[in-house]
């Protein structure tokens, strides 16, 4: 569980810790991916290139299973980035905060508070991140729907009868909402439980967290992987629904 530390930006605020962790995840992801594509070869790929190719093939298969692959192919870059970003975000919250001592006395931009705490924070444990991703999903859904069907896309809002318009409107709002809250809830709860385990009595003396912690961390890795998969699959499914030629 992380205290929300805010930076003042104009007349509003931003969650400093979320931003810092997002940028960290982005940096790690960029390093990881660029190490993988550094020595690209069409012959025998290196280990990292192999991993990246596996991810690309995995997402490509999800897309081709769910929709006409020609319509989905331009989305592939977005979807691969999405699944990897969410996975990395989910994983980083499980790593013990080894940088805390470095920033202990750095008052600038509240860095001592931002980088304090027992573990690093998942960017996806902040509703702003998950809602941002879900918003992009729904923008893609509507955008691609219009692109592939033109104005006819909006016709489905009054199918089979105009009376159903409110239901369709709720549907189009509920999709990003459920996406955002599912991911946020899973990851946030995971971090809360980590915090709770760390508060178990006797931790300092008897190592009370030694048994439950690895169990929960292992489960969290599983949850993190599943949630990144679910988010991506649902994004693909919603887009497939929007672009499908159902008439």
């Amino acid at each position, binding site marked *: 569980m992380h205290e929300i530390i805010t930076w003042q930006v104009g007349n509003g605020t931003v969650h400093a810790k979320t*931003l810092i962790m997002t940028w960290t995840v982005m940096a790690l992801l960029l390093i990881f991916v660029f190490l993988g594509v550094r020595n690209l070869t069409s012959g025998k790929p290196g280990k990292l290139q192999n991993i990246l190719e596996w991810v690309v093939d995995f997402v490509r298969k999800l897309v081709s299973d769910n929709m006409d692959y020609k319509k989905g192919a331009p989305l592939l*870059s*977005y979807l*691969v980035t999405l699944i990897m970003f969410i996975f990395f975000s989910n994983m980083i919250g499980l790593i013990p905060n080894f940088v805390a001592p470095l920033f202990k006395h750095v008052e600038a931009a509240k860095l001592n508070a931002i980088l304090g705490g027992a573990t690093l924070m998942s960017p996806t444990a902040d509703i702003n991140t998950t809602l941002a991703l879900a918003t992009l999903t729904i923008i893609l859904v509507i955008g691609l729907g219009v692109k592939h069907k033109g104005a006819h896309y909006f016709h489905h809002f009054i199918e089979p009868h105009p009376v159903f318009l409110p239901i369709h409107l709720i549907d189009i709002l509920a999709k990003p909402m459920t996406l955002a809250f599912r991911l946020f809830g899973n990851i946030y709860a995971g971090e809360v439980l980590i915090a709770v385990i760390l508060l178990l009595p006797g931790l300092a003396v008897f190592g009370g967290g030694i048994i439950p912690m690895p169990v929960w961390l292992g489960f969290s890795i599983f949850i993190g992987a599943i949630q990144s998969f679910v988010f991506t699959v649902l994004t693909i499914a919603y887009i497939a629904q929007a672009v499908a030629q159902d008439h």
Partner: protein
Amino acid sequence: MNPFGIGFAYTIASAAASEGGGGGNPVAIDYTYPSQILSFLILVFILAKFAWKPLMEMMEKRRQNIEDNLANAENERKEAERIRQEYQAEMLKARQQAQGIIEKATKNSEERASEILAEARKETEKMKQAALADIERERDKAIADVRAQVVDMSIAVAEKIIQQKLDIKGQEALIEQFIQEVGDRPC
């Protein structure tokens, strides 16, 4: 406080905030939200342009390579099959030619053999004829010799008889007759 008009989420956030007393509210939406959208779009842009595009091109290239290799292998297989059939046809032809040569040689040798045989027979015949002719000649010669000797002996005998008993003059006719008889007698 709510610049983005996300009413539903914000209501939850403010409700939670009022209960939790500020700092601990996990569902608070502020400028982090657009910032995260922007961050993620930048990440997508960078990765798509510098990582996924070259990576996918490379995968496509590999797919193409494999396809080409398979096509090449198929072509080579067909080529090998063609060469094999050519070779087989060639072999068949060679075998037929060899067969022909052997047959011809056999025929030739048979002809030659019969020719030699015929020649030998002819030669033998000729030698036989020559031998017969020789024999005939020898016999004739021997007969002539014997006849001459008989004549000589007869004359000698006759002389003796005549010397002892006969007056040659008186017996000329008789002697002549005798000689004639001896000469006509076959030996």
